[in-house]
């Protein structure tokens, strides 16, 4: 009996942890559970606007109800004297709304400035990551302009250090997508032909889930991503691990698995550094086993899910770009072993 390489999940939170970075009620993908300064400032603005909204709504309904029922109370028609009518319209319809809107406008501009200033000008140099959206996954490339040999590509998961601004360069290779991790910041579109940028910062370590937020085709609903924030030392160690290509397999089953991968053309689309697989049109699989999800947040990265995914990608995510490749039973097992060895 061979040792099992997949992580052993624990019921029943395991699926939540793998897919959602937390569970319901702990603010997963939640605009009002901010975990970074940008999201926090936006949430603050919202709560102020909400308080004003409630006040406006209650006040208007109260005034309306009072006016409607006034005659009923007094038992006779009791129309508004013209001067009072004028005041009602002037104050209720113009002056008070203008004041409220001015407050909201100024606060909005202020919030906008605060969240935009991060990573620009003074302060620590942001970590720059290039994110390219494709139907229906995210290519992630870690940049290091001073040391280009230390750059590497991965997919669907973004690791960032805590306490340091992160600047995403957002591009698209096909249609318009939108990058959105609500716990951290508002969204920014990935538009073919232009590079947008989004700067955010995470203060607490954790895993945060995001999802594509611009309809991009049939599987828009299953184009999610995870952002994992690590303390700086752990992040640096993670970077080192990602730079190293995986050691060639020695175990015979894994060798067979690698052969299955190469012989069935997987390398035409996917790349695994240190092997002949150099494809660029599908997620990079160099450290596939270190990722928590498969197919851009569609499934947890466990053996069972991976087996189903490889056997029938169109069944799980119809309309995505991965074809089904027919494999014999033992070929599938070997391939699963190999892929889960790519830590």
């Amino acid at each position, binding site marked *: 009996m061979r040792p099992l390489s997949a992580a052993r999940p624990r019921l029943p939170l395991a699926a939540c942890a793998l897919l959602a970075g937390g569970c319901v009620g702990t603010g997963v993908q939640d605009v009002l559970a901010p975990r970074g300064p940008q999201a926090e400032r936006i949430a603050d603005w919202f709560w102020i606007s909400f308080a004003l909204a409630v006040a406006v709504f209650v006040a208007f309904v109260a005034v309306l109800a009072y*006016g409607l029922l006034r005659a009923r109370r007094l038992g006779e028609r009791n129309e508004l004297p013209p001067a009072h009518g004028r005041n009602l319209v002037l104050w209720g319809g113009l002056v008070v709304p203008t004041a409220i809107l001015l407050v909201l406008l100024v606060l909005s501009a202020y919030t906008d400035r605060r969240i935009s200033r991060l990573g620009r000008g003074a302060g620590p140099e942001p970590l720059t990551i290039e994110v390219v959206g494709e139907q229906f996954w995210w290519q992630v490339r870690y940049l290091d302009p001073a040391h280009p040999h230390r750059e590497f590509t991965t997919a669907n998961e973004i690791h960032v250090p805590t306490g340091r601004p992160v600047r995403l360069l957002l591009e698209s290779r096909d249609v318009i997508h939108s990058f959105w991790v609500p716990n951290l910041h508002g969204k920014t579109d990935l538009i073919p032909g232009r590079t947008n940028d989004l700067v955010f910062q995470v203060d607490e370590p954790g895993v945060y889930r995001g999802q594509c937020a611009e309809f991009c085709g049939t599987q828009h609903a299953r184009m999610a991503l995870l952002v994992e924030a690590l303390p700086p030392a752990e992040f640096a160690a993670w970077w080192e691990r990602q730079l190293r290509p995986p050691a060639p397999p020695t175990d015979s089953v894994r060798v067979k698995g690698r052969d299955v991968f190469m012989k069935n053309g997987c390398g035409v689309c996917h790349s695994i550094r240190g092997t002949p697989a150099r494809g660029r049109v599908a997620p990079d699989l160099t450290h596939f086993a270190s990722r928590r999800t498969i197919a851009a947040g569609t499934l947890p990265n466990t053996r069972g899910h991976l087996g189903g995914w490889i056997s029938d990608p169109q069944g799980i995510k119809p309309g995505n770009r991965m074809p089904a490749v027919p494999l014999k039973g033992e070929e599938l097992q070997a391939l699963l072993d190999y892929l889960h060895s790519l830590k």
Partner: protein
Amino acid sequence: MATLEPAVTPDARAGDPELLERTWGSPPGLLGWLMEVNHRRIGRRYIATGFALFLLAGLEALAIRMQLAVPENDLLGPEVYRQFFTMHGATMMFLFAVPIMLGIGIYLVPLQIGARDMALPRMNALGYWVYLIGAVTLYTAFLLGVAPNSGWFNYPPLSRREHELTIGIDVWISVVTILEVAALIGAVGLIVTIFKQRAPGMSLNRMPIFVWSILVMSFMIVFAMPTLMTTSIFLGLDRRVGTHFFNPGGEGDPLLWQHMFWYFGHPEVYIMFLPGLGMVSMVIATMTRRPVYGYTPVVLSLVATGVLSFGLWVHHMYATGLPRLGTSLFTAASMLVTLPTAVQFFCWVATLWGGRPRFTTALHYALGFLVIFLIGGITGVQLGAVPFDLQVHDTFFVVAHFHYVLLGGVVFPLFAGIYFWWPKVTGRLLSERLGKLGFWLMFAGVHLAFWPQHHLGFMGMPRRVYTYLPEMGWGPLNLLSTVGAFTLAAGVAVFLVNAAVSLRRGEPAGDDPWGGETLEWSTPSPPPVYNYRWQPTVKSRTPLWDPDWGTQPVVTGLREDQREMLSTTLLDARPDNREILPGPTLVPLVTALATAVPIVGVLFGLHWVPIGAALFFVAITAWNWPGAMPHRTEEPGGREHRLAQREREREEAEEEAGS
């Protein structure tokens, strides 16, 4: 009380109902139906067709809600789901809301301004036929499984050929183009009618507020719709001919689409909103038995809303990476546009204040509009703020917002108008009991269906997803929202029952069941085909409430054996000219078919465009061929015979009285 009986003995040559009936009527049978140019019949067709499409779009919505009611549902697969949400949006926005408002305008405006018909009856008919062709085209594509599938606003590059080969996108382009033509035709007809056909004395500042709202809407259509036509033709060229308007690889820009679409798209929602505001004003005034408080501020608000709405479009594009200073200006503009509506809200409060209004179903819907639209307006202000919008843009928060403003600002006023004018249109009353039941179901349904969606947006649920993971925890609120959608549907169903019962055996309504103040309440219900036996004049905003309405002068001197109308000056409505209108004819139908050939035919091959253009040219030539007008009523012996007959009858009557 309200029906106008002139104090002076009418000229023997005027007010002959039988002659008027023959002059203004249509031939019977199918042929007559196809040749129809009468504004009320065409208006009714617009309204009936629009409402049928509303029901279809509602069914599409129920399918969407059923798919989303539980996580990982498999009722609608992702390919089918895309078509459903696109059809729901496109039907509601293009095929229901604007046409039905146009239809109500076409029906009601001539009545409210004291005219016998619209100024350009054949064009009016053309508008309807073109609209019908558009609707049939879209739904044929849907039934054939090739409906458009990339959202009602169809962003490229997704909608470009390399990403969407399906002909559905081309169907969208054709249908939208043809519907824009219909809307422009309707709008131009309404503008000309309102400017030139008002009753003498109905200066601009005496026009009913509803007519003002239709006028502003029509101008907005004229300024907004051509942009959409142009940009959808650009997409069609990209797809069929190989241009690169929206292809970044070819020096184009996907954002060009967004700018051009939303430059139309934002005014579009105000286009559908303004007539509702006008209807609410009428309902509140009549039910309170008072003119709307602040006629001038209300009218100026309508105009201001219309104008300002053209300056907001970028608020749909905050996430695209446009410069922050520019987008902030649009925040200010988006907030500014709420002020005119706030003014109107308080004018209505002032009207209702202390007035003991009659709480009819129509008033219920008007009050429901105030509450629901207020909530939607508030979330709209929030969405106008760039940082907050970046969080909730393209999530269910936006879906909640626009359903609140559309259901609140378009559907509820529409139902208020339906309950208000139904007696006039059909001659029967709707049941108030059923009406109020329907209202409460719809009111509760709106909140149940859409309030939870605000929360879903905050919880991270994006728009246009066909399913979601159970772990996200979105299941319960989605289920609640689905229950709400069905409640809303039940309310609409109650209305349908009410309507059916009323048509079969509703109580006769009489001319003026509500004690209305505007001209339409002075005709029988339903009005005869010629609207007014004697065309009225007015000297106030609320003519039927004038104490001396009974002795108001009427228009005389127009021929009644041909279709003649009095045209008046723009500002003061002083008599200006005599217009001769065409009678029933097949030319509008033929022209509509000729219009469809290039626009729909292009789906089958580019060669249909020049062929269709040639056919259209032929049709327009036939349209303008001299001798088509005037339409004269044939009469044995002619008018002189009838006059002599009348003279004889009068002499006999005098003799009998004398003896």
